[in-house]
């Protein structure tokens, strides 16, 4: 068995006095697409925040490519090769699409490669070429999600983490997002995906962790998780998981 690309080992984290994670462990191997599932407040986003260094875990460790990155600053962790597409997209509204992408390339910028990188993004997301000189704040939600993903890809990440990429998007745009994840997966990119829309997520991932109350409740291959759908539906909000969007 090869060593995993990302290994999260028994991390605990809290927001002030509120404890959010009670010992999360997970592994992501190179080339794998892994989902973190669970309802609001289960600890999915907190786990991502702990990996990116935005939140310091109170105990436990995060290892990436054999290096302990626990409690490193976010800017150092991005440099190591982990990029996050944050929840709510977090586009720089006053900056143009061009400037958003340029900042995405902050850690990876090489003059001769940059143009080619942009061209690649335009192929993946033609709308960004159209909107290149417009402020990011004027883009629609779906376009902003595309921009957020492109911005993260500009850093040439080894591991791409997506936090609720389908949240608040129309079913059609949600389809686009999942199609994109599939195509990135085919390119061999390693992805850690946080989703409430468990059904859709399980279609595109190899492996999933089901979180509840700051703990890993169930984990296994996508097929295994699907088989345990009775158990899972409890955490996934039952009927709601059937629809395009989970309302909570």
């Amino acid at each position, binding site marked *: 068995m090869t060593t995993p690309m990302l290994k999260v080992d028994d991390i605990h984290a809290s927001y002030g006095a509120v404890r959010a994670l009670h010992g999360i462990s997970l592994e992501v191997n190179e080339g794998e697409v892994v989902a973190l599932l669970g309802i609001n407040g289960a600890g999915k986003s907190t786990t991502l925040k702990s990996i990116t260094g935005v939140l310091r875990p109170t105990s436990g460790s995060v290892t990436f490519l054999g290096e302990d990155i626990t409690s490193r600053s976010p800017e150092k962790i991005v440099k190591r090769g982990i*990029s996050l597409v944050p929840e709510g997209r977090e586009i*720089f*509204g006053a900056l143009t699409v061009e400037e958003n992408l340029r900042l995405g390339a*902050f850690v990876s910028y090489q003059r001769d490669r940059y143009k080619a990188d942009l061209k690649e993004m335009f192929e993946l997301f033609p709308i960004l070429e159209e909107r290149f000189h417009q402020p990011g704040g004027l883009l629609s939600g779906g376009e902003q999600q595309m921009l957020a993903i492109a*911005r993260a890809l500009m850093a040439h990440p080894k591991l791409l983490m997506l936090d609720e990429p389908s949240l608040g998007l129309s079913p059609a745009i949600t389809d686009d997002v999942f199609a994109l994840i599939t195509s990135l997966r085919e390119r061999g990119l390693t992805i850690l995906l946080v989703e409430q829309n468990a059904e859709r997520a399980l279609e595109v991932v190899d492996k999933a962790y089901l979180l509840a109350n700051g703990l890993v409740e169930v984990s296994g291959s996508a097929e295994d998780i699907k088989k345990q759908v009775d158990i899972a539906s409890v955490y996934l909000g039952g009927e709601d998981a059937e629809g395009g969007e989970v309302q909570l």
Partner: protein
Amino acid sequence: MNLEFLINTLSLGSLYALLAVGLVLVYGILKLVNFAYGEYLMVAGYAIYLSAILGAPWWATLIIAVVASMLVSFFTEIAAFRPVRTKSMDALLVTSFAVSIFLQNIVLLTISPRARAVPLPDFFSKTVVISGATLPLRNLLVIGTTAVVLVLLSFLMKKTVLGMAMRAAADKFTTTRLMGVPANFVISAAFLISGFLAGVAGIFWVGRSGSVDPLTGAAPLLIAFIATVMGGMNSPIGAVVGGFVYGLLFNILSIALPASMISYRDAFMFAIVVLFLLFRPEGIIRRGYTEERVG
């Protein structure tokens, strides 16, 4: 409108705009109104005073003034603001008062509580006559200098990666760090630029009275603060507009008020500002876009 009034208003507005932009750059990123900002101007004044005593030529004293202001701004951030940055906003605000009082007391103890004459080049006090209007050359200089500084600043903010990172950080600080932009890097840059603006403004500020004392920074800080609040705290453009509007109001009051009332000019000034904010609390310049559209 006569030429004299126009030039005087533009020069006062320019000076206030410089002051305000320096304050708003740091506010944008740290959400801190840096109450030590006035002291960076004071430092510029004392730097001219001291370097002139040591025999520096006039042009060198001005360069030294700007550099001193930048360094003090830079190091106060590292020594005072950085350690409390992650703690709380209140701690940052109180720290800025502490830095202000600390800097005032350093010059009070080491130089003098009394005002010191600041030697400025002769052309600062010369006047020129343009189509019948007698104008202090200093007023024209401040307009020209401000124009150049604002063009340079706008180039920096729009065309360089550092500028993009600073604008991004003013919008979403954590997300900017997630792009790999080091937090300390943008904050240090903001304080350096803020110090630069304070230094340049400081030269013209002490140039008006020709002297500097430990409390020299109080008035420009207040003006910068009011101008930014009036213009809109969100952007350097708001600060520039606020600075010019403040200058215009000040000059109008200076002319319109009868001689017996002129000492109440500031009271009128603040009353107008309070009334204005009552009707438009977000300032003159609003954000020109909504944060996010649902779609």
